[in-house]
């Protein structure tokens, strides 16, 4: 047998028919309120059924409020969307973690924490951050609404075979440098189009040393590098995380599954179409300064000058970014003041993220004039944080403590950053208007965001005491 990569093994395992494109079987289909109503309507119109409701899981996250659940949903359109998902899941017998369910949360937090996400699976969702689930050694990617309808009806998808890319992270991460800095650093180097057409496998010593939640942060942002998906080979860390979770295999099935999963990592002689190497040991904390995640730099540097870019298209994009962000070339990043701090999202809304941030703010106060908000990634993360006393730490420091959802990551609910104001955000996108029309986003790690909340400006968290 020829040597194969992790991706190739999963691909080969899932071909129902065809070659390129191949018809791939989907093991887990995650559904949320925003990209599914038209798919269910299409199904209805054609008189089709959901083929495998048992392999489908739905929750609400994108447009729901993060204020007390007892207040309900004020926005009539969002309410209609959430109601539609409840009706659609009821009708088709799909498990639904609704607003009143203690398991509700961001779809990419909920899947892993309940054991739905497992190695070797093909996982899809009408959401580009589906790449998150690749952290388990799954092939996971975002799809559009027409494809959601296709998967609902057939449990399969026609896919062109993507190219493979290895990103090797050598060395281990230095103190104060996190998974978020690692992925931001990579995107800064490869660019937002660097991964187009590829599935990335993250490899190397720095990756092996990461927890599952840190691995999810990395894979989550694969799409910000343009990649179709990102993945990390399953290992003991993966199995330890999964064992005992509600949906994970039990007893003899667990043993069989682990044996299969242990065969998945890339064979030593397997070849990738492209390989990049990044020295993780020399990475420093990163922060974005522009209007796409590739416009990111070390916190120790300054706002770039458009004249340092030779490609006219890139230069034009830098000019546009600095105008939108209201930044002057040469300004040290640590001198940039912030009005808002958002801790949350499918990138950094998990319990470890909240622990790290709480450690930074413990015993301190949010700077005067800064609006700091914590939105746990799921209701289970929220409950755990409350149990551990993290919620008290945040609230004593002056943070607002919310219910789970996507919130200010894309500001589809009321958590909108006002025009002209600046937000240090642990989310994944700094696109124009992403957090609110005219709002200015700086992407960074939870520790860096927490420190910025206390200081009132961006800081190098390595200098924090």
């Amino acid at each position, binding site marked *: 047998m020829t040597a194969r990569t992790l991706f190739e093994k999963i691909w080969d395992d899932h071909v129902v028919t065809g070659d390129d494109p191949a018809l791939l079987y989907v093991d887990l289909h995650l559904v949320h309120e925003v990209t599914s109503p038209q798919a269910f309507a299409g199904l209805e119109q054609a008189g089709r059924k959901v083929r495998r409701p048992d392999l489908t899981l739905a929750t609400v996250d994108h447009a729901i409020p993060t204020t007390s659940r007892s207040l309900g949903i004020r926005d009539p*359109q969002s309410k209609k969307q959430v109601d539609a998902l409840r009706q659609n899941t009821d009708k088709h017998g799909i498990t639904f973690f609704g607003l009143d369910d203690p398991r509700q949360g961001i779809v990419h937090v909920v899947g892993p924490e309940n054991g739905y996400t497992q190695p070797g699976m093909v996982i899809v969702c009408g*959401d580009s951050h589906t790449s998150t689930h690749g952290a388990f050694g799954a092939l996971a990617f975002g*799809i559009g609404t027409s494809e959601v309808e296709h998967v609902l009806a057939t449990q399969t998808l026609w896919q062109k075979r993507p190219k493979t890319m290895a990103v090797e992270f050598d060395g281990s991460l230095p103190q104060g440098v996190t998974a978020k800095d690692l992925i931001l650093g990579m995107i800064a180097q490869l660019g937002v189009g660097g991964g187009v057409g590829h599935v990335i496998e993250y490899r190397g010593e720095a990756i092996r040393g990461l927890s599952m939640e840190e691995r999810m942060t990395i894979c989550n942002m694969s799409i910000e590098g343009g990649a179709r998906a990102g993945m990390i080979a399953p290992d003991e860390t993966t199995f330890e995380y999964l064992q005992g979770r509600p949906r994970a295999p039990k007893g003899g099935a667990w043993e069989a599954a682990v044996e299969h999963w242990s065969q998945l990592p890339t064979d030593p002689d397997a070849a990738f179409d492209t390989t990049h190497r990044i020295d993780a040991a020399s990475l420093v904390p990163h922060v974005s300064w522009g209007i796409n995640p590739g416009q990111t730099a070390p916190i120790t540097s300054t706002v770039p000058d458009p004249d340092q870019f030779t490609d006219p298209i890139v230069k034009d994009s830098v000019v546009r970014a600095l105008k939108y962000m209201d930044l002057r070339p040469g300004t040290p990043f640590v001198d940039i003041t912030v009005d808002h701090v958002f801790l949350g999202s499918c990138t950094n809304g998990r319990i470890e993220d909240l622990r790290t941030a709480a450690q930074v703010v413990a015993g301190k106060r949010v700077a005067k004039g800064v609006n700091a908000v914590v939105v746990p990634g799921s209701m289970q993360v929220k409950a755990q944080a409350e149990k551990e006393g993290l919620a008290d730490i945040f609230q004593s420091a002056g943070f607002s403590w919310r219910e789970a959802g996507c919130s200010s990551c894309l500001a*589809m609910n009321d958590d909108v950053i006002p025009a002209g104001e600046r937000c240090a955000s642990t989310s994944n996108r700094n696109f*124009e208007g992403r957090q609110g029309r005219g709002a200015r986003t700086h992407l960074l790690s939870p520790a860096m965001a927490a420190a910025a909340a206390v200081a009132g400006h961006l800081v190098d968290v390595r200098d924090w005491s």
Partner: protein
Amino acid sequence: MRPVSEVKGTMVPLPQADVDTDQIIPKQFLTRTERTGYGAFLFYDWATTSDGAPSSDFFTNDPNRAGAKVLIAGRNFGCGSSREHAVWAIQDWGFDAVIAPSFGDIFRNNSVNVGLLAVELPEPDVARLQDIAKDPNASIRIDLETQVVEAEDFVFEFDIDPGVRERLLAGLDPIGLTLQEDAAISEYESRRPAWMS
């Protein structure tokens, strides 16, 4: 889905790189549960001032650009969010095709699924088209059958995945086609490991 074989008409240039789907259709329009009616919100934040009035310098408000059929975009067009609403908005506004040096992967797939022709050409060819498209009356013709783009005296050949081409030309319903594979899908399901089911 209606078949696509030829797109003919005028063009709109939008040269900047990495235009994400948040720009194409901002999030405030994603709570709608319909598939239609997004054209009025295409590039909303660029097309309007902060008080909602039309921005005079944006193409969607320029009467000379009304009725254009082809958007000439920059590299990595449609990156970011998977929202199919982006292709619905482009199509609903009136475009039948987008030409760019490269596309976001999900955007490209979404285009095929709604019959919006996404044509990839090398960067210098797209730059040439950007230039020609400055004239709102300049016309372009894309022939999917022969895989050529014609504008002024230029003829550019383009590559497209044969399966995609066939689907667009025939206007096939992919779900209907896949359902014909029902036996193969059932057979696959019978082989799935027990712990997965």
